[in-house]
């Protein structure tokens, strides 16, 4: 077995890279939520002065990337790789943003799991000595996602209680080989899990088995339990997906109910009419970047497990009756280099 592998799905990074800098941009609704004060930029409207929502999302992506680079005192040409993606067809937001950023680019699609997917790959590249600086960026936009996956915005439809609200937001994270906490110490790559859920208005139920499987694999591979973490943070399971994950892990003998928080549950308040919570590539990116990392720097949390969760569906696959496969990738974020 390779030197740094632990068990079936986890690696322990030989040279844990750090998160050198970060930036988060969110939409108006997210800015009005309970975490509003933590975000770097809050947009005043969904268009941000652009002609289309797609252009606005692309600009959020670019600006977040540039902000993270500038904050570390670097230039775009200093960055070795850009890993990133978004929710739109052909990850067009990430592609168009990479066109103007001019950084060697790997485009990724893991639906809403793209954040930890990009951080996993970026951390491996740095730890292996192939790069000094890697930028990981993801974004989503309520209006662009709605028109691609669902109905026009002005169409009068009712959403069921399990429906989620796509977060308008972009998060950028600059990883480097510096000695500056927090560090990425472990990576557990998820398998695609499908328990046959077909309801596109219930992504939480489709993703919960994947989240539970990755958490279980992580515990088994590292031979540690929930006690090793101050917090386990999932991306966008929503209120019901979170409960399902807790139940599924209880069956496996792990009780994480006291330390599992979900970014989709944290970003909006109950009176914001988002039903089960937030979702999207931007959801875990902005909550982790703005809120969780701030709390880690303040010393509230020392070691966390971050899992972005993705529902790997397309409009065609749903209409043809295909069930919704889920995936979850986990990274351990530690203030200690280990």
């Amino acid at each position: 077995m390779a030197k740094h592998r632990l068990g079936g799905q986890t690696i322990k990074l030989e040279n844990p890279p750090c998160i050198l800098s970060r930036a988060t941009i969110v939409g108006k609704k997210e800015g009005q939520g309970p975490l509003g004060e933590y975000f770097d930029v809050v947009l005043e409207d969904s268009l941000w002065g652009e002609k289309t929502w797609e252009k606005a999302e692309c600009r959020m992506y670019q600006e977040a990337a540039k902000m993270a680079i500038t904050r570390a005192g670097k230039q775009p040409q200093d960055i070795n790789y850009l890993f990133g993606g978004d929710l739109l067809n052909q990850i067009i937001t990430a592609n168009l943003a990479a066109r103007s950023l001019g950084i060697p680019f790997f485009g990724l699609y893991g639906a809403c799991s793209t954040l930890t997917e990009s951080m996993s790959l970026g951390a491996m590249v740095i730890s292996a000595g192939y790069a000094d600086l890697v930028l990981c960026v993801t974004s989503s936009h309520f209006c662009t996602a709605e028109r691609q996956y669902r109905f026009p915005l002005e169409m009068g439809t009712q959403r069921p209680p399990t429906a989620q609200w796509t977060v308008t937001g972009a998060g950028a994270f600059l990883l480097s080989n510096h000695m500056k906490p927090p560090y990425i110490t472990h990576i557990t790559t998820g398998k695609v899990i499908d328990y046959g859920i077909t309801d596109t208005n219930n992504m939480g139920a489709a993703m919960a088995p994947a989240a539970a499987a990755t958490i279980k694999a992580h515990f088994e591979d590292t031979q540690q339990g929930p006690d090793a973490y101050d917090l386990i943070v999932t991306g966008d399971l929503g209120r019901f997906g979170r409960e399902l994950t807790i139940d599924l892990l209880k069956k496996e003998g792990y009780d994480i109910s006291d330390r599992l928080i979900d970014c989709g549950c944290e970003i909006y308040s109950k009176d914001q009419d988002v039903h089960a919570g937030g979702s999207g590539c931007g959801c875990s990116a902005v909550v982790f970047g703005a809120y969780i990392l701030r709390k880690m720097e303040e010393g509230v949390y020392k070691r966390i497990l971050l899992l972005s969760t993705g529902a790997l569906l397309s409009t065609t696959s749903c209409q043809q009756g295909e069930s919704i496969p889920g995936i979850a990738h986990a990274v351990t974020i530690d203030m200690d280099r280990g």
Partner: protein
Amino acid sequence: MDVKQQKLNKEYQIYVQRKMPKSNLLRDCILAFLVGGLICTIGQAVNNFGKSYFNLNTEEASAFTAIVMIFIGALLTGLGVYDDIGKYGGAGSVVPITGFANSIVSPAMEFKKEGYVFGVGSKLFSIAGPVLVYGITASVLVGLIYFFVK
């Protein structure tokens, strides 16, 4: 898929179905009745107005009502109000002719950015299209039956 996985899936699906909250059917029905009823009452008022004020006969008054109600539905969609009515009214705001106007105007607004041919032109009936296809097919069938039974 092996039998064991199939059983596991079934168990999970049943469990999810039991655990998930259901939409409040009674509340939704009452709201749909009230909102749909209100829209139809307005429609009837327009109809009566057409008959008494413009001296329209029954057929003309129906056309007059449809024109006015479609205009109201389209206007409220453009003003960004109809989707809020839909959120509470559900079927009550979808079934009347104002809902039909909403289903045509909302994609027209949304897809204007893709141009007038491949945006507005091709997406205009993306939601109303199926309604037209099956509505017209059904009316032809009913018409045929009526023709032979009469």
